């Protein structure tokens, strides 16, 4: 049986991509990076090794009792607490000494103080400032209660703060999951989607440009039609992408089914077979949309730099969901999110984010995929037209507008 030329080109493209070191490294290391991004925040919130050893803070105007309580609180984090007398001198010292993180001004009467001031070198040492806030608040409140005549035992029971536990509801049941972890996992996943779409899109664009600038395309055109070249490249790269995703999904499943239980690791709840399936589906949809667009622009571009200039609308649509990730995750049913869910260029990433946060209704998913399939057909059709004209146009740079005119050329 004769193999079709599209297939021959696809096979060659697949062979070339999968043989590169970059592809092998990303395929193997990808899951570890995702795991790192989704597990790391959990580790960080456990305050492990947050501050460098030897980090100090200075308390100015403190009394021994306050100093002792603060010292005890920070002791387990390895942060040293020392006393100072002059606030201005201490502030200067903070700027001079590397290990001195900040200065807390302790007022004489903490029960009457409305605002405490902590002067920090970075302003972002939330761990220290949040701890100080809690300790000083506790001290002030219990001191006030003591002044009002309560016994220490009463004070403890009266001031005990109840905790708030967030439990995520889904069809599968309740899960212990704090919002922070959900957002981090979602960001990690859509980051992966975004990176791979961008990577594969640019790969196909550059592959077309290489062929065009190396003039090899003329030889290939003497054997195959432009459509066969474009579809061959998309199919070849798509298969490589699918292979990569399959490896990742298999590794993730091993993690869920074998490694996780064996080491009794608490894995992010979003890492489950359903979301992995949707990850692959949305990757494929986005891949076909963006790869055909990139192939067309690659054919129209003069060189790789020119492709970068022409591809701005694609980058723009890819970046929107990334920038808007928190409004999307926080409020998956807002009008804004709805629009992005059904706009083809943003749909794959946005809908996937929604799937991770709370599963949309079946009709919403079906509508989204229907829109995507129609858009892919239109995009491929238009891209093929641009590709056919662009691939033979050398020696001139075209504007995005000029390229769009090629859509009207007849065959």
């Amino acid at each position, binding site marked *: 049986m004769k193999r079709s030329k599209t297939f021959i080109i696809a096979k060659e493209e697949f062979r070339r991509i999968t043989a590169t070191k970059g592809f092998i490294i990303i395929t193997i290391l990808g899951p570890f990076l995702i795991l790192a991004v989704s597990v790391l925040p959990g580790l960080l919130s456990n305050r492990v090794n947050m501050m460098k050893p030897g980090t100090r803070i200075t308390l100015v105007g403190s009394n021994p009792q306050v100093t002792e309580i603060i010292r005890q609180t920070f002791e387990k984090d390895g942060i040293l607490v020392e006393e100072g007398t002059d606030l201005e001198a201490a502030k200067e010292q903070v700027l001079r000494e590397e290990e001195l993180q900040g200065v807390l001004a302790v007022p004489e009467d903490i029960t009457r103080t409305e605002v405490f001031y902590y002067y920090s070198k970075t302003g972002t040492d939330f761990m220290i400032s949040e701890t100080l806030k809690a300790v000083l608040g506790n001290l002030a409140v219990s001191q006030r209660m003591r002044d009002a005549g309560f016994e220490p035992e009463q004070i403890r029971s009266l001031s005990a703060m109840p905790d708030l536990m967030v439990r995520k509801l889904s069809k599968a049941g309740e899960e212990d999951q704090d919002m922070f972890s959900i957002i981090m996992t979602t960001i990690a996943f859509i980051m992966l989607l975004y990176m791979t779409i961008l990577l594969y899109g640019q790969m196909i664009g550059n592959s077309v440009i290489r062929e065009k600038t*190396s003039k090899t395309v003329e030889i290939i055109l003497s054997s195959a039609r432009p459509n066969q070249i474009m579809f061959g490249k998309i199919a070849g790269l798509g298969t490589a992408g699918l292979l990569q995703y399959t490896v990742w999904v298999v590794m993730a499943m091993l993690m869920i089914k074998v490694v996780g239980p064996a080491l009794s690791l608490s894995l992010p709840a979003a890492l489950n077979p359903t979301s992995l399936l949707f990850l692959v589906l949305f990757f494929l949809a986005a891949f076909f949309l963006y790869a055909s667009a990139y192939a067309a622009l690659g054919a129209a571009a003069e060189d790789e730099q020119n492709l970068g200039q022409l591809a701005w609308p694609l980058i723009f649509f890819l970046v929107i969901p990334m920038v808007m990730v928190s409004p999307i995750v926080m409020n998956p049913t807002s009008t804004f999110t709805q629009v992005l869910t059904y706009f083809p260029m943003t749909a794959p990433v946005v809908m996937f984010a929604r799937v991770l946060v709370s599963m949309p209704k079946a009709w919403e998913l079906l509508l989204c995929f229907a829109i995507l399939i129609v858009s892919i057909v239109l995009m491929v059709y238009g891209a093929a037209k641009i590709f056919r004209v662009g691939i033979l146009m050398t020696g001139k740079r075209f504007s995005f507008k000029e390229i769009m005119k090629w859509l009207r050329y007849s065959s």
Partner: protein
Amino acid sequence: MIELREVRKQFDTVTAVDGISFTTDKGEIFGLLGPNGAGKTTTIRMIMNIIAPDEGTILFENTALTEEDKNRIGYLPEERGLYKKVKVNDLLLFLGRLKEKQDSLLQQNIDTWLNRFDLLKWKHNKVEELSKGMAQKVQFIASVVHDPDIMFFDEPFSGLDPVSTDMLREAIHDMAAAGKTVLFSTHIMEQAEKICSKILLMNGGREVAYGPLEEIKNRYGRNSVIVEFDGDGSFIEGLPQAAHVVRYPRYVEITLAEKANTDELLKALAGRLSIRKFEIVSPSLHKIFIDLVKK
């Protein structure tokens, strides 16, 4: 085998090819000649169906070119280049596979051609490791690796050293001798003169001259003949074959009349003079081309 009838192609305001017609036959080495921008590459691209002509007909064995036919054609484009990161053998195999040929046949041809061009030891090197001349020979092999019946070579000799040029010329001769059709374009007339049996001279998209090489030479560049002889040559000026005669102490230079050929002239002289030397000094294609284009 290939026939073009009144083929025309316009790009925006420029008419790249303006009513070109020609026919090539089996076993012929056909030269598509003209300066840069004459429309040679556009013509070849139209024959290859890479771009469509605006007007006119292009026939391949009396029918329009099909995708199947493309597998019987070999094409060496004017602008040279190959994928840099791919090994020579892999590249040649890939390009051969695109012509829907079996790997076993392709590998055999690849080895034969690499050997012929002294490139066998570079078989597993990447293209970027080759010198420019070697890469050019590889590209030539790429166009013939599937053993095509018809070949289009766009400026095949440019940039080759004399040894490689000879190798290539020999290869082209062998292919024509084996009954294959070779169509090549060049702006270097000396090359065309050496190997073409038929030519089409183009300029500004139009035909300037077309026909068998010898015929064109006879038609446009009048041959001169230098004759050394014993006897009374005073009748030479009166011969119908001589348009113009210049006498030198030891010989005469005769410019042939229109439609006259050297054989006739020799016959006319032979009975009446004892000829010591009869040398045809043909005008170069280069000279003809310059004259025609300047008109």
